[in-house]
Each structure stands twice: as structure tokens, then as C-alpha cells.
């Protein structure tokens, strides 16, 4: 029996899964509140990638805690938790109030149609209130669908709760029919953060499901649904087959407008709820050409948006038609659309001569279907969804060179110049300006730059995707240090501590770090590179105020010891090794860096090598001379010996002579 306790309060029973509450990327488990044992909770174990909506957690938590009466599955707690399968098995845990059964288990379910009054009371009113709060927090729900509506577990009046929206990337779990056309064509992972307008559209489609007692369209044929939506509009496509009142038709007409700017806002929805007043939107049907254009064997294409959709479905044929200039002729003669013809002319000016066919296709599709998702080598993404799209490509190691070309291409920043990072803030900067900044980062291919830095700039929610930390879910710099420290404590450690992902992640999240730290890590000299990495880690340790990182210190020292071969003096090396090992225990990286980064010592060592080699040469010469002397028949000391003999005999003779003279004189 395994369980996990968060914040000393919430116990997650990992042995008790709840598949009915699992989402596209998160597994659900039973959970308990240890302080309030009677409350029923469930926990979601999210995936590292696709990453949950981390930036939306705080606003949602605030809405949940501040408004307990909201008909929302309340978020009780969120934390980056370590799950039972080892210290490196981490991901975000979301603890929610546990709802009852979902309204629909799957979108294919059929059930008795709901009365309009019930829908208004149980769904529209609560959702209106929830979306009001979400708008105040400047977030969208982006997961409104019948399968994410639940009956309240404790309620006897079968109240409806709106399900969670945080465990997946925005719109990831949504069927395309719940998305406005601009988002519906994007890949689920690449839809990006949207606005309340997208939620209102999803509300409209959800109402259609409830009024109809099931799906209002054949869900198995997505292509037909999209084509119908483009040609006839989403309202006409999703209008329930069952009889509904005029006021409800007004509501659906207002909510199911495909263009965001024409769709009802919360204000209009509020007006409809309070006094039934409606301001009918003007959806504006697409203008049809006087003659169709033939594309890929189809002769009945009358609108540019249909043509754009068909071109997305057949990109190779689309590239051919772009080269033939048939489109501008058709726009000019068949549709009399001079504006688009001029835009096509402008596109030639924007795109450099070396631009690839895929770059031209992006531009042509944007001209034909303005505001739709971007199409690049088989992938569709919105401006805000580019980060997740790129992350997905990096994870799968799929067409990365293509993404590098895309981001460096002027075409993307040109079309993203109109897209605000926060759509509800008109004065906020655009994605185009952000892409321009990112292009500079991309051009620097060293550590802290390249496609990785582009990823983390575009996608602030994403954890560090370094292979070293792939299971640690490192969401910030202290997480990275803690993760590396844990890896350092183990035995199965990678060869390098800081890789391109980690450096890029830190470059983006610690923007005040001087660039020299990253530049030094590109050194070809292994010791210099390692010292640069340690100094980089020292700076991070200082900034994060993590005093004891024993595992990381051990890892750093273990990698440094073989590099000490740069020092030629073996005793110095042994001394340094001993001192380094002594520093591991303290877990402070600064003295380790100081000990290794000693230029004077290295220079003295190199000088010492030359001196020792000269001394060795001198010793060898001297030894050769000595051996030659020893081996020679006539030793140089032979003459000294004869001289000594003469001196001795002289001394003896003189001594005897003096003695004799004295003896004679005295005698």
C-alpha cells in the first residue's frame, strides 16, 4: 500500500487509481484530506510533457479558494510532488474536490435531451459565473465540454460542476468541434492559451450536445465537420436537430460565431441571462467566387478559406499551385478580391529569394484564411501554441532543423506581428516582437542559446527537458539544482552536468545572469569548461541560497579529478585531489571553484615542468660524465693520489729531518 502525503495534509492513495477522472495527460488517484477526513478528493498526477498549465494554477486556486460556492471542481492543493517510483519520478500533483459522475462519459454517448431551463440553471449560469472570475484573473478555462461536466457528488439536486482545466496544455483535451475554427485547425498540443471567447464557443457547442441528447454532428467525420463549419458556419453545423426555443437559438447564434471578435462576450451572455436581451451578431458569411478554382482534383472550391483548408490537407499539391500563380488569378478574376492579390504581391517582397516553399505556404495560407493557425511541414500551430509545438518536436526529435528555419524566417514574425501575447491587452507586446528577440538567441549557437533557448522563451510553463532531468520536472532554477544534487548522490551519473537544455532553461529563467558564464562553458579545453560549469553552478547556488549541495559537489569533484591531469606535478595533483574531496562534505561549490580556478598555480605548474625537464637533462649529463669516469682505466683521482703520496713522503721526510736536527742540537 503506497501513499503520498502533500503539505502534511493531503494523502494521495497511489494504489487506488480513478480512471474515470483521468485526463488526456494525467492519471487520477483517490486522495484524502487528513484534516477533514469526510471530504472526498482526487489527485491528478500530471505528465512532465505535455506540461500542465502551471501559470494558470495560482489564478485557478485563487478563484477556487475565494469562491467556494462556484460550481467548479475546486482545486485544493497543487505541488511538484515526488511520486513513489524513485526520487527522480517527479511531476505536478493537483488535488481536487472529487465530483460525481460526468454528464457524458464520452462524446459519443446518447442521453435524453436536457430541458432548456435545466441547461440554463445547471450549466449556463454556473459557467457564466466561473468565466467571470476567470476573466478577472485573465485566464481561460479551455476545457469546457460535456465530458468535463460532472454531477456534484454530495448534491441531491444534481447540480453540475465544471471539471478541471489545468492538467493538460490549453485545449489539449478538447475535440476540435469545441474550438473556434481558428483553433480547431491547430494540432491539440499547439493551440496555446486562448481567451474567454474560446470558452464561450465551447459553451455553445456543449449546450448543443445537451439540447440534442448527444453529438449534433457525426464525430467520426472531422473533415466534413470542418468543411461544413467553413461553408455554413459553426452555428448552422452544430444546431441541434431537436426543437429548441427562439431564445436558445439566439444564444447559440451568439456563441457559435467563428470569428472571435463577432462572438458574444460575457457581457452579452449576462444580458441574455438576466433579461433575454440579445444583440444579434453579424457572422458574415464568406464571399463566394463567381467561378470555382480547381485544386487537387476538386472543382467546387468557391471560397479562399475552403481553398486554404484543402491546401493544408494536400501541402504538396499546394506548393505546386503556389508556383503556378493560379491563386492570384482566381482571386482577381473569380473573387474580385484585390486586397488578397496585393497581399500575395507583398508576400513576395517579404520572403527572401532563398525562402523555402514551406515558408511561402505559410504566407499564402494566412492570406487566404487570415487568423487561422500556422501550417508548417505538416504541423499546425497558433502563435501562443508555437512553444508547445516546438517542445513536442524536441521531445520527439522531429524536424528540428525545420523549426530553426521557421523561427529564423521573417515570414513568421511578420504574421505574428498582429498577434498579441495577451489578447485581452491591446497594448501588450506581440508575438512578432518576441520572435524577433528569440531570433537573436537562436543565432547564438553556444550554451544558453540555440533552439533550446527559443523553446524556453516561448514556453515558460515547460519544465527543463534535459535528458539529465527528464523525470525530475524541474520548473525553476532551484529545482534544477536540487535535481542535479540528487543525480550527484547516485552512481549512474551522466558525463556532463550542464547540457544545452539546462543552460538554455537557466538563461531564460535567470535573465540577469551575465552572458560570460554561458560563453565560458563553450571552451574546448575540458578543464576550463568544467571550471566554467562550476562557476556557473556557484552563481546559481548563491542566487538560490542553497547552502549544502553535497551530491552536486561530489559530482563536480568526481568529474574534476580526471581533469586535474592538466596539472603535471603529480604531488600537486594528489594534494588538489585530497583538498577537493575534503570540500565535498560541506556541499559548498564556491571553494571548489576557487581551488580549481587558480591560474597562477597552473602557470607555476607549467613553469615547473620546464624547470624539472631542464634539471633532469642536467642530471643525466652529469651522471653520464660520472659513469664515464668510473668506467675509465685512468681515474682523474690517480694524479691526486700520486700528489698525495709525494706530499705525504715530503711531510714525513721533513718531520724526520727536523726531528733529527733538534735531536742533534739538543744532544
Amino acid at each position, binding site marked *: 500500500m503506497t501513499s503520498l502525503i502533500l503539505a502534511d495534509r493531503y494523502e494521495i492513495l497511489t494504489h487506488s487509481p480513478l480512471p474515470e477522472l483521468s485526463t488526456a495527460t494525467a492519471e487520477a488517484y483517490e486522495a484524502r484530506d487528513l484534516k477533514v477526513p469526510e471530504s472526498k478528493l482526487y489527485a491528478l498526477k500530471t505528465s512532465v510533457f505535455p506540461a500542465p498549465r502551471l501559470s494558470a494554477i495560482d489564478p485557478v486556486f485563487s478563484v477556487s479558494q475565494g469562491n467556494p460556492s462556484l460550481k467548479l471542481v475546486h482545486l485544493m492543493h497543487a505541488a511538484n510532488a515526488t511520486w513513489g517510483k524513485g526520487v527522480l519520478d517527479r511531476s505536478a500533483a493537483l488535488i481536487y474536490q472529487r465530483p460525481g459522475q460526468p454528464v457524458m462519459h464520452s462524446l459519443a454517448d446518447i442521453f435524453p435531451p436536457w430541458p432548456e431551463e435545466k441547461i440554463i440553471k445547471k450549466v449556463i449560469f454556473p459557467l457564466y459565473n466561473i468565466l467571470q472570475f476567470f476573466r478577472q484573473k485573465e485566464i481561460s478555462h479551455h476545457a469546457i465540454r460535456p465530458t468535463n461536466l460532472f454531477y456534484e457528488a454530495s448534491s441531491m439536486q444534481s447540480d453540475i460542476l465544471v471539471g478541471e482545466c489545468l492538467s493538460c496544455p490549453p485545449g489539449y483535451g478538447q475535440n476540435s468541434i469545441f474550438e473556434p475554427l481558428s483553433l480547431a485547425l491547430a494540432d491539440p498540443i499547439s493551440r496555446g492559451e486562448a481567451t474567454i471567447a474560446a470558452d464561450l464557443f465551447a459553451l455553445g457547442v456543449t449546450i448543443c450536445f445537451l439540447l440534442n441528447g448527444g453529438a449534433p454532428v457525426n464525430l467520426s467525420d472531422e473533415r466534413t465537420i470542418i468543411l461544413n463549419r467553413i461553408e455554413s458556419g459553426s452555428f448552422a453545423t452544430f444546431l441541434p436537430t431537436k426543437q429548441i426555443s427562439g431564445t436558445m437559438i439566439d444564444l447559440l447564434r451568439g456563441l457559435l460565431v467563428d470569428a472571435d471578435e463577432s462572438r458574444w462576450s460575457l457581457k452579452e451572455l449576462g444580458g441574455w441571462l438576466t433579461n433575454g436581451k440579445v444583440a444579434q451578431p453579424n457572422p458574415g458569411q464568406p464571399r463566394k467566387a463567381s467561378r470555382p478554382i480547381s485544386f487537387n482534383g476538386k472543382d467546387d472550391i468557391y471560397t479562399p478559406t475552403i481553398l486554404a483548408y484543402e491546401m493544408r490537407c494536400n501541402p504538396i499539391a499546394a506548393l505546386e499551385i503556389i508556383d503556378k500563380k493560379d491563386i492570384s488569378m482566381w482571386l482577381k478574376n473569380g473573387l474580385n478580391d484585390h486586397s488578397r492579390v496585393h497581399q500575395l504581391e507583398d508576400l513576395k517582397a517579404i520572403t527572401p529569394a532563398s525562402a523555402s516553399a514551406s515558408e511561402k505556404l505559410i504566407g499564402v495560407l494566412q492570406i487566404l484564411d487570415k487568423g487561422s493557425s500556422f501550417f508548417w511541414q505538416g504541423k499546425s500551430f497558433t502563435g501562443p501554441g508555437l512553444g508547445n509545438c516546438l517542445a513536442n518536436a524536441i521531445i520527439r526529435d522531429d524536424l528540428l532543423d525545420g523549426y530553426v528555419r521557421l523561427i529564423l524566417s521573417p515570414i513568421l514574425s511578420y504574421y505574428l506581428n498582429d498577434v498579441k501575447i495577451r489578447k485581452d491587452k491591446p497594448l501588450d507586446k506581440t508575438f512578432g516582437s518576441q520572435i524577433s528577440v528569440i531570433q537573436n538567441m537562436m543565432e547564438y549557437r553556444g550554451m544558453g542559446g540555440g533552439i533550446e533557448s527559443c523553446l524556453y522563451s516561448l514556453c515558460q510553463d515547460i519544465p527543463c527537458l534535459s535528458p539529465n532531468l527528464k523525470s525530475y520536472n524541474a520548473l525553476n532554477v532551484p529545482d534544477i539544482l536540487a535535481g542535479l544534487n540528487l543525480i550527484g548522490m547516485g552512481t549512474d551519473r551522466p558525463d556532463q552536468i550542464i547540457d544545452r537544455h539546462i543552460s538554455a532553461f537557466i538563461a531564460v529563467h535567470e535573465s540577469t545572469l551575465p552572458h560570460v558564464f554561458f560563453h565560458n562553458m563553450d571552451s574546448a579545453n575540458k578543464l576550463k569548461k568544467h571550471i566554467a560549469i562550476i562557476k556557473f553552478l556557484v552563481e546559481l547556488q548563491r542566487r538560490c541560497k542553497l547552502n549544502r549541495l553535497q551530491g552536486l559537489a561530489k559530482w563536480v569533484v568526481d568529474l574534476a579529478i580526471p581533469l586535474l591531469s592538466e596539472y603535471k606535478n603529480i604531488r600537486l595533483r594528489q594534494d588538489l585531489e585530497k583538498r577537493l574531496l575534503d570540500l565535498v562534505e560541506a556541499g559548498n561549490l564556491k571553494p571548489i571553484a576557487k581551488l580549481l580556478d587558480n591560474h597562477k598555480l597552473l602557470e607555476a605548474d607549467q613553469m615547473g615542468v620546464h624547470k*624539472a625537464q631542464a634539471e633532469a637533462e642536467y642530471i643525466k649529463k652529469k*651522471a653520464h660524465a660520472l*659513469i664515464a669516469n668510473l668506467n675509465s682505466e685512468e681515474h682523474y683521482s690517480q*694524479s*691526486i693520489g700520486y700528489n698525495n*703520496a709525494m706530499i705525504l713522503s715530503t711531510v714525513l721526510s721533513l718531520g724526520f729531518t727536523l726531528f733529527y736536527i733538534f735531536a742533534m742540537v739538543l744532544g
Partner: protein
Amino acid sequence: MSKTERTKRDNSKIIILILVLFIIGVVTYPGLMIISFIILMPTFAALLTDVSQNYSLSFCVGICNLASSLPCFRILYRNQFSLESVYQIVHDPFMLLFVLVGSGIGWLIYLSVPPITMGYYRKQDQSNLQKLAAKYAELKDCWGDMIPDSEVFTNLSKSIDDQSQTQQQE
């Protein structure tokens, strides 16, 4: 200087010079000359056999021979270099023995001091060589492969090891 060069050396000129001086001496001081000829026999012998470069054998034997001849010359001087005193000296075996012993000491010094000196210097050279080998080994210990291996010291350390092994066995 090689052995052949040593044997080739000719002291005949010196001998002839001495003989000439001797003949002149015999005419002027016959007693002195006779005694000198008799008691300086060892020196003449050394001179004839001396092959050393600096006449060290002759010098050693000669100077000791001269010193030990002092009593003879004193007697001769007292008796005014008379032939009687020559006869007296020649017939005094102790006097001649004393002269021979003196010359013998000179010869012994010549034979023993150079080998001892050479032995001392050789020992010192070997000690220096071992010190150099130790210094080289220390450098090698300190700097490793940066100091190239030397055959001289490798062989030397082998021979030292062999010597120590044989000493242990003994």
C-alpha cells in the same frame, strides 16, 4: 697516458746527467760521492723503474731516502768526507738498514696512497651518482611522464637492487 706510452718513457738522460755529476763529484769529493752512490741506490732504482708522469715514485723514494741518509751524511761531514768514515759507514749494517727502511717507507707511500685516494674518489663518485639517480627518481615521481625514462638510471637502479639482493643473500 696509456701503458705503452709509460714503458716507452726514457730516463736515460737523467741517469747520464747524474753519472756526469757523479764523475765530477768523485774527482772533487770522492768520499761523499761513494757514500751517496751507495746510500742513494734505492732512489736510482726508483728512477730507473719510474713510469709515473710526475716522477712521483722517484720523488717519494728519493725524499725518504735523503731523509734517512741524514745520519750518514752527518758522520761523513764530521770526518771531513774522509774515506775512513766511508769505510766505517759501509761497514755499519744498522746505518744501511736505516737508509733502506727510509727508502722502503717512501716506496710504500708511493704504492699505497694513490690507490687509497682513488678508492676514496671512486666511492665519492658512486655516491654522487646514486644521489643523482635519487634526484632523478624524485623528479620522475613528482612529474611522471613529463620526465623521460633514462637508461642510465634504470640500469643503475637494477645494479643497486642486484647488489642489495646479493648482500641480503650473503
